[in-house]
């Protein structure tokens, strides 16, 4: 049995003084693909935010990589994760920034992606290399989403946390990219989505 890499114990989350998640518990094992689904407004995004300390939890506790989610540990925890919010909420000028910006941070410099690594990820996510010279307002939402996913994968972190990973993709790309990301054995993935194909391919389904 693989050991749990994320433990969420009896947490409650409030949004605008309203309790949206109550006494909630789940565990994620290393390499497991977990999907969080449920109607809009049920707190999927808040739950993802809580796991990385962006939304405060009122009750309960969260452990990642054996460490309690706390102010002392937060940097160590965030060093081991890749996180992607909804594609539309991130604004960049150039495509280059999407791919290379995270590698300017000290902790990621050692993982600076080789040309080969970029070629492989781009091929699997159906991204044309010519996009690298473009401005973000010249590309489509689907292209931007694939680039953001590429950047997250290139970081080679243990855990990938994503909100609506396939929302801007067409059917063909959806399947192809879902298969590629969920086939990565070592990568632990937590995604919030309605996408039936992604849900079908996941190991654990959490319905809010």
């Amino acid at each position, binding site marked *: 049995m693989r050991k749990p890499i994320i433990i969420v114990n009896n947490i409650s989350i409030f949004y605008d003084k309203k309790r949206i998640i109550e006494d909630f518990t789940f565990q994620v094992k290393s390499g497991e693909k977990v999907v969080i689904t449920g109607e809009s407004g049920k707190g999927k995004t808040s739950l993802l935010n809580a796991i*990385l300390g*962006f939304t*405060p939890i009122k009750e309960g506790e969260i452990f990642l990589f054996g460490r309690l989610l706390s102010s002392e540990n937060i940097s160590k925890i965030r060093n081991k994760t890749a*996180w992607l*919010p909804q594609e539309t*909420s991130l604004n*960049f000028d150039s495509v280059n920034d999407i791919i290379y910006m*995270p590698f*300017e941070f000290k902790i990621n410099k050692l993982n600076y992606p080789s040309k080969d690594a970029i070629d492989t990820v781009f091929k699997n996510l159906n991204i044309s290399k010519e996009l690298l010279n473009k401005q973000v307002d010249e590309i489509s939402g689907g292209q931007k989403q694939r680039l953001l996913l590429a950047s997250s994968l290139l970081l080679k972190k243990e855990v990938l*946390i994503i909100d609506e990973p396939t929302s801007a993709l067409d059917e063909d790309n959806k399947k192809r990219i879902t298969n590629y990301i969920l086939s990565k054995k070592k990568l632990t993935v937590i995604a919030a989505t309605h996408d039936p194909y992604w849900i079908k391919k996941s190991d654990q389904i959490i319905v809010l």
Partner: protein
Amino acid sequence: MNSVYDIDYLSLILGYIILIIPFYILWYYKTGLVKDAFIAFIRLTIQLLLVGVYLEFIFDLNSALLNIFWVLIMTILATYTVIKRSELKLKFFFIPIFISILLSVIVTDAFFLGLIIKLNNIFDARYFIPITGMLLGNSIKTIIIALNTYYGKLKKEKELYKWYLANGAKKSEALVPFKREALKNAFNPVIAGVAIIGLISLPGMMTGQILGGSSPVIAVKYQIMLMITIFSSSVISVVLSIYFADKYVFDTFNNLKKINN
């Protein structure tokens, strides 16, 4: 030395009548600025009249202690104005911004008055107070633009900031793009302004010195040094303000607190 033509009080009142035109335009386009503009000019008048009286008194006394006290009051007012105009919370921002402005004033005053002009007494009211006033007046504008850009962008691009943090950035690394933007927005217009001085605008201080009977060459030398000092002092106060305020406005998880009123 040529004597300066005084403006008599009747002409002064006549001067105010010209305001009817801009006020009418602001009112016609329903900008909502008429009341603010009206109050601003009333304040300008009262403040300057009081300062005029006060400066006559303070120049006569010319006590270093009193001058320092006056500059401290000016710094407090500058801090207050910056925070109010940026719609930020006083409780987070008063101390960091006050300290930053004060530090930059101390450094640049010491440099300009002590090193460049080589005053025997750098607290000489005739230099210390107006020069500090110009430093403050000019820094305020850039600090307001910088803080507005910085915190505005941090709020608007909150997800981007989180994206940096959650992908391994230290807080200082995640804030770099926001600081860059703040500096660019604040100093672009300043640099453009510096570049056209002499061609299009004759700056106030130089004009004043020439009207007061100084030779244009002296006035020009003062102006150049003053522009350099103002520029340096603004950059220093912007960077320090953001640096000190950052210590107060993030929670222990590095999330931005609610900072606006």
